[in-house]
């Protein structure tokens, strides 16, 4: 494999490739690209109960989302295992590294710190808040806002939608609170 592929890809290569998803999905399927609807379809498929939000033909509306999400699992394997090395370190800035070190992060290898992201951490306070509550809020908020990073920050902004800009501002308000207030409280 060429070394340039094995190395991390710069933002000016990755960003435009991600951006091309938007016209491709419009052209191929006439659809707006977004990922978080997948979560709604998973609920509709498994536990719709009598909740109106989940009472629809999830296969007709969501098969393409589910196919794409399944593909993402395979892509994660290819990009994270085959086109990467096990000792890869994400080259974050020195400032971030020292900020995170002061919060008690010691392992900087891989995509996520093993100090927190490990199965045996799930039942600790940091594990519960960061993984379980964090995941819950991502799912709750994405459906409440009717979109996540792909649907609002990329597809929506690319269509110059004011509603998406407002949602993205919300993403940052929440993210700043988590990064600067909640994480130091939990990890510090």
């Amino acid at each position, binding site marked *: 494999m060429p070394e340039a592929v094995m190395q991390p890809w710069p933002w000016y290569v990755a960003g435009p490739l991600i951006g091309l998803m938007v016209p491709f999905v419009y052209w191929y399927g006439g659809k707006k690209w977004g990922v978080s609807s997948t979560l709604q379809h998973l609920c509709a498929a498994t536990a719709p109960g009598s909740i109106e*939000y*989940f009472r629809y033909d999830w296969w007709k509306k969501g098969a393409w989302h589910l196919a794409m999400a399944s593909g993402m699992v395979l892509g994660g394997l290819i990009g994270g*295992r085959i086109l990467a090395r096990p000792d890869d370190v994400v080259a974050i800035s020195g400032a971030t590294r020292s900020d995170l070190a002061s919060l008690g992060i010691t392992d900087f290898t891989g995509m996520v710190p093993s100090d927190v992201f490990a199965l045996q951490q799930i039942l600790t306070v940091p594990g519960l808040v960061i993984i379980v509550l964090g995941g*819950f809020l*991502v799912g709750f908020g994405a459906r409440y806002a009717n979109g996540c990073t792909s649907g609002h920050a990329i597809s*929506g902004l*690319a269509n110059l*939608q004011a509603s998406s800009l407002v949602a993205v501002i919300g993403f940052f308000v929440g993210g700043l609170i988590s990064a600067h207030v909640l994480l130091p409280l939990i990890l510090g």
Partner: protein
Amino acid sequence: MTTAEMEQVEPKEGSESLAVYFTLGALIAVVFMKSEVVSWFRIQEMFRFQAIHMYGVIGSAVAVGALSIALMKRFGVRTIRGGEIDFPARAAARPQKHHIVGGTIFGLGWGLVGACPGPLFALIGSGLPVMVVALLSAVAGAWAYGLLRPSLPH
């Protein structure tokens, strides 16, 4: 050629291939992994404004997406099957309460778990079983939203 044969030659709207979407998902997740946007470290860096990386990725993605949409609208590009493309109308996309409130809740989660929905799937594939827990929590979050939806401000 009989009518039945003609129908076979020209695929109808809605007969798009799931294999294409699967492949697209795989390709984009490779990009997610190799550009490290799935990394908790990168998300923390972004919310600390300590590097251009995430802003570069999202900014250039939006620029390419916006240019593409503008060109598609300008030239009246149709779908591969000849259908009209239904771009969301800007007037119908006026900001409402649920955008800011839901967005802020999403951001709180993004800053903690460091991954939005697409990267959650990619991280599971990269061999992090702990991310299955995060994904199940996200599905539970979506379910809770569905349950509470009638009583939430929108």
